[in-house]
């Protein structure tokens, strides 16, 4: 990415820009979802697209998650590149059959006759007092289903490049946007660029500990790493970008260097994506580990409404800092 550009846009604007560019490029790209049209999305991430592309390409749908994902599957296997928005990622629970049993498997079941270039965008994560049914980070579910790809962009620049890749990918991609990021501004390069799937991003180099993080936890990890850096503890931070495909090589290289691995992912800790990140490279790094691999994740309780309860259960820079410091000590 061109470092000279200092243009700043929000994460939400990056969504709209990525979709806009892809729609301009390919008339097969359409956007459907609840409230994506007239008001430009519940999170204002698709503002302006309906005005530009019209009602049939930017379609406000009924509240029918299963139906609209299935609609996307049908469009995708007949030559289009639909982008389906599921307002809150918690609602993928209503469409899991179409995601996991249909979108993910139709190509395989057909023996390769069809392809499913479908992007499912959804807003994940806690931190906005949205309570138990609007705050989850359920990417572990979809990452467990062969046939799907899963992306978790951390910043607006990452989002834009990864979303364009998702839309151009000929496979179903579940694209998890973090809801606390939408209104934040980030430097984003001008012009066209894509970011390939399956290439983790080393966002900070270090030698004492590797932190592998996803989505918003990348930013929190960087905060923690900055603080540790000031104390002379240099921590490497890796933004995983995609869970599927999973870039094991970058992680393995880093852990071989640092000997220590902390995984930070916002999904519930137990049976979460972090477990795979660790076990997935276990055999490769076992003899290089100076310390047990450790994880941070959202505690194993439904997400409570009250901020007094919610913030303590989600990993933050302080918790990451403390855990990392404990691990990095010699």
């Amino acid at each position, binding site marked *: 990415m061109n470092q000279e550009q200092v243009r700043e846009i929000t994460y939400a604007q990056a969504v709209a820009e990525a979709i806009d560019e892809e729609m301009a490029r390919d008339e097969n790209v359409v956007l459907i979802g*609840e*409230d994506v*049209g*007239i*008001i430009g999305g*519940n999170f204002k991430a698709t503002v302006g697209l309906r005005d530009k592309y019209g009602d049939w390409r930017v379609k*406000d*749908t*009924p*509240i*029918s*998650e*299963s*139906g609209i994902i299935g609609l996307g599957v049908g469009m995708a296997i007949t030559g289009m590149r639909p982008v389906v928005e599921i307002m809150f990622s*918690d*609602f993928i629970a*209503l469409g899991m059959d179409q995601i996991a049993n249909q979108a993910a498997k139709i190509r395989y079941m057909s023996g390769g006759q069809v392809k499913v270039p479908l992007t499912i965008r959804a807003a994940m994560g806690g931190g*906005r*007092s*949205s*309570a*138990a*049914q*609007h705050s989850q980070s359920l990417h572990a579910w979809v990452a467990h289903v062969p046939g799907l790809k899963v992306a978790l962009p951390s910043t607006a620049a990452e989002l834009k490049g990864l979303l364009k890749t998702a839309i151009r990918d000929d496979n179903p991609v579940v694209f998890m946007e973090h809801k606390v990021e939408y209104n934040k501004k980030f430097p984003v390069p001008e012009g066209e660029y894509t970011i390939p799937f399956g290439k983790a991003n080393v966002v900070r180099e270090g030698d004492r500990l590797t932190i592998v993080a996803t989505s918003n936890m990348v930013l929190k990890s960087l905060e923690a790493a900055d603080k540790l850096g000031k104390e002379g503890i240099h921590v490497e931070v890796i933004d995983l970008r995609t869970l599927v495909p999973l870039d094991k090589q970058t992680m393995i290289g880093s852990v071989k260097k640092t000997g220590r691995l902390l995984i930070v992912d916002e999904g519930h800790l137990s049976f979460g994506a972090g477990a795979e990140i660790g076990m997935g490279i276990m055999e490769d790094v076992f003899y290089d580990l100076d310390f047990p691999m450790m994880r941070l994740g959202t*505690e*194993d*309780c*439904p997400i*409570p*409404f*009250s*901020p*007094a*309860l*919610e913030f*303590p*259960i989600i990993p933050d820079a302080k918790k990451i800092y403390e855990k990392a410091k404990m691990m990095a000590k010699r």
Partner: protein
Amino acid sequence: MSAQKRSSKKKGTSDGNRYEEDFLKNLYATMYRIRQFEEQVFELYKLGLMPGLAHSYIGEEAVATGACAALQDRDYIVSTHRGHGHLIARGADTKKMMAEVLGKKDGYCKGKAGSMHIVALDKGILGANGIVGGGIPIATGAAYMAKYKDTKQVTVSFLGESATNEGTFHESLNMASAWDLPVVYVVENNRYGISVALDRVTKMQDIAVRAQAYGIGGVTIDGNDVLKVYETVKEAVASAREGQGPALIECKTYRFKGHHVGDPATQYRTREEEAFWKERCPLVCFRDYLIEKAGSDEKGIVALENAINDEIQEAIVFAKNSPYPDAVEAFEDIYFEGR
């Protein structure tokens, strides 16, 4: 079985029936309590005192009020994301509600629920629900219980018109009708699901038509007419209680505010439409009716209103004074451990 449509009246009130003044005043008090509660929630939001969001019931008070007035104490209701009105109409404690909305320890759910998920089991309130359509099968299950145990309890399932496009609506009504379960589905047709007008995503504008697919009674009524709602729901509830199965009641109404407290509602509907409905404000209409037709004196009504204003102010004080829950409480209530 076909949808009946009530000709809309300027001052949406029925007057074919005679009721005790107390009963009528109670209806008004409930509507006024809901209105006042919601106005104050909005104030708290604007002051930044409320975490998250809330969905205002202002403009729709007659639906919850009329429907809940038709229930017995042992009956159940299942509510939605726009649940404050249902809860208040069902007799929930405004103190505990307000504390919950602010995420405080003395809230109905100890701050775990917030606006969207309040349960008040002592009042037969099985829960608001943040998932559109999520409560419909749950309500139907409560009705299965009542039928199985022959308890003669009826469940009212509130839902928005847009929720009728979720698969759960269809699956639930099919089962309820096949098995004659004692459940009444009360659809609040305020025309919008967030920003999406019903006619953009559904061909038939009267949701009551959908009842035909299940062979059950379906009617469309003026949802701003509290007596009409009361009478219609009462009849359906009685029939359900007697074992004649479910019904679908569509109440045409309107939300005066945006979808939630943060939505200005400027992009997707017209000021004319808003004005049309504000003319039909369920509170104003029924207040006029009380005074003009039912012989209530305005002083008494003002006194009632003042008392309710005080009650809601007390609720706010109560909620503000209530502490936030301790962080460790996040780990309580996940599983039932006792016996």
